[in-house]
């Protein structure tokens, strides 16, 4: 008698078949959802008379932008406004990342100072600034601090070179003269040479055990070499100072207050998070490591450089990655004070004028995705460098 095997499950209890059924349902559901959205969107756009497509990028923008790193005026295209905004976003992001890292590491290290006051100040800094919304901090710097600065004639100044007033910060500009290329070349050669020295010193130490003063040699190479060439070439760099003409300063570099407020708040806010990460990183190194290093006779400076920092970096690097990403994303808050970043210019003015909501929002999102990816790739390379290598 051929009986069916009783332990054979009913087909709908078979996990493999179930998985297929679930996924078919999921696809059907999602398909219907997207069908609804797309058909609704098409109807709505037709009703409002919006043409889809990217032709609008070629038409004349007709509006001015407060600050641009490339030549731009109202006769340029919408496509150009995208580039202007993009460059302004990159500018504030890079300024923010550099200064937030510096502030963060100072605060993080200050947490382990021998001085009680410095320790407490670091804690207070972190706890105050990371618990207040970034937008509020931007408003504070922009509306409560920078817009109450004196006018151009009463500018705060630093040695007749740097001026600060309600219209912005004025810095001297570096002007190149004949022969400056040689100095720049010397600088690049210095950097390349320092890498070679470092490599050679490590090889030698591995072979013979002798140490070479890499740090001081490289300082001489990177700073000394350009300075010597600078004087040898007859000082081919000059400074162009901002000068008060009429109602404002001209010449030099002008930093608009919007950029200052945004960069300052991004630095202070992200710096608090990075400071916390550095603290956590240093604390994550077990105390036994320090004790072991002391017991084999290492100096405190060596312990920091060779034992604690490399291990702490393993904890800090992934956090730095996500902090940098959120800094770039947070730079979109520029739109609240009118700093012309990608968001203000493109999603703000350009979208208002053209009504191409879908194209513009997607282009902008794509840009931030690419930024995130670039940061991720760079930081992962760095992460790999500091990660634990088992030999």
């Amino acid at each position, binding site marked *: 008698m051929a009986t069916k095997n009783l332990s054979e499950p009913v087909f709908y209890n078979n996990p493999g078949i179930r998985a297929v059924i679930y996924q078919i349902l999921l696809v059907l559901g999602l398909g219907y959802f997207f069908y609804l*959205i797309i058909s*609704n969107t098409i109807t709505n756009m037709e009703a409002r008379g919006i043409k889809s497509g990217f032709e609008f990028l070629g038409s004349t923008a007709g509006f001015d932008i407060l600050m641009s790193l490339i030549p731009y005026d109202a006769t340029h295209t919408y496509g150009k406004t995208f580039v202007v905004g993009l460059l302004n976003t990159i500018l504030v992001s890079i300024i923010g990342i550099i200064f937030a890292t510096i502030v963060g590491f100072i605060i993080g290290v200050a947490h382990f100072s021998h001085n009680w006051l410095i320790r407490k100040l670091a804690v207070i800094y972190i706890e105050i600034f990371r*618990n*207040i919304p970034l937008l509020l901090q931007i408003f504070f710097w922009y509306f409560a601090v920078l817009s109450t600065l004196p006018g151009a004639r009463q500018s705060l100044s630093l040695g007749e070179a740097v001026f600060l007033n309600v219209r912005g910060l004025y810095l001297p500009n570096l002007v190149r003269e004949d022969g400056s290329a040689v100095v720049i070349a010397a600088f690049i050669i210095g950097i390349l040479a320092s890498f070679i020295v470092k490599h050679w010193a490590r090889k030698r130490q591995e072979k013979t055990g002798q140490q070479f003063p890499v740090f001081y040699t490289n300082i001489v190479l990177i700073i000394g070499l350009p300075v010597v060439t600078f004087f040898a070439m007859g000082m081919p760099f000059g400074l162009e100072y901002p000068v008060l003409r009429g109602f404002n300063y001209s010449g030099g570099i002008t930093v608009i207050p919007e950029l200052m407020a945004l960069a300052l708040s991004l630095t202070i806010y992200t710096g608090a998070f990075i400071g916390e990460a550095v603290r956590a990183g240093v604390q994550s190194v077990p105390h036994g490591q320090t004790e072991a290093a002391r017991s084999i006779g290492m100096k405190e400076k060596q312990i920091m450089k060779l034992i604690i920092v490399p291990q702490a970096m393993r904890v800090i690097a992934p956090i730095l990655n996500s902090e940098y990403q959120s800094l770039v994303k947070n730079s979109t808050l520029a739109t609240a004070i009118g700093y012309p970043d990608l968001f203000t210019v493109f999603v703000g003015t350009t979208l208002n004028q053209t009504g191409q909501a879908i194209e513009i929002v997607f282009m902008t999102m794509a840009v931030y995705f690419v930024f995130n990816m670039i940061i991720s790739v760079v930081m992962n390379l760095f992460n790999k460098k500091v990660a634990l290598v088992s030999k």
Partner: protein
Amino acid sequence: MTTGIVAWMKNNLFSSIPNTIATVFILAILANFIPGLLDWLFFSANWSGETQDDCVKDGACWVFIQAWSQQFFYGSYPTEEIWRINLCLGLLLSVVIGSNFVSKTIRTKIFVPLFLLLPFVSILILNGSWIGLEPVSTDYWGGFSLNIFLAAASIIVAFPLGFIWALGRRSTMPLAKSISVLLIEFFRGVPVLALFFMGSVMLPLFFTEGTNVDKLLRVWIVLTLFMAGYMAEVYRGGFNAIPQGQYEAADSLGLSYWQKTLLIILPQVLKVSMPNILATFVMLFKNTSFLMIIGIFEILSTTQAALSNSYWLGGHANEGYLFVAMLFWTVCFGMSVISSSIERKLNTEHRK
């Protein structure tokens, strides 16, 4: 002498020459600023009065905050109906506190459904038109209470949603997995401001013509999805911390997938990810202030409106920002204290 205040000062403030210089320098700066600050904050401040004219002294004009306090907390919600906001805040507080003091069974059987119902009950009470109260349009909702409600309502829905996405990411079904990854990465990778703009300029295009979706509802949807992306990532960390043996033990007991997930894995995931959940919530709460950019009358836009009010000469930015900062700081710092106390409880590893 190794103990006592002098020894402490010698060890912590004046242990070396650079340290002594730093101490003196910092003390000098503090001595320069603190008295003036205290004077502005308290001693010369104007505490009582009703209008700008009552601010006669040099210090801070706290009268300004007092006069606008109802706006700061409740927005333009009608004064005689404010008890409804207080009632909802009370409900939220009692559910949160209550769930900490009941046994585990009651918590899962009663308080979890209560939590999930809370946003909808609050909408019923605050809107009022469905339960016979005076209807209050969402245009009048605002102030700090709106920040609290939006953050709470979003995290309550994002809790289960994020968990489903996180499960999807771990799933062996390739389609479910890739959809979950796509959703999580999308909502984490895009600036929250872009999501808000998407909610206000693109979402209306997605609905059938003529449907007018309320502004706050759209914000709620966006905040929930944004939060779910971050929560899914937090849960993922939690899943990774659960030993493989737990899954195997549940399987060998013959538990089904959902029994295993909900009874064995979820409680442990929640326990280990609690500090991160709170940190994510703090981030969400701070991000509710971004809503002013798309024209929601949360506390920061109320403050901006108050600052530009002509009766107050528009010159109380310091007081206004300080007050709002203090409100946010209290909530966020409170939460980070709770979070670190949980972390300490969980962390039994030996440290210096």
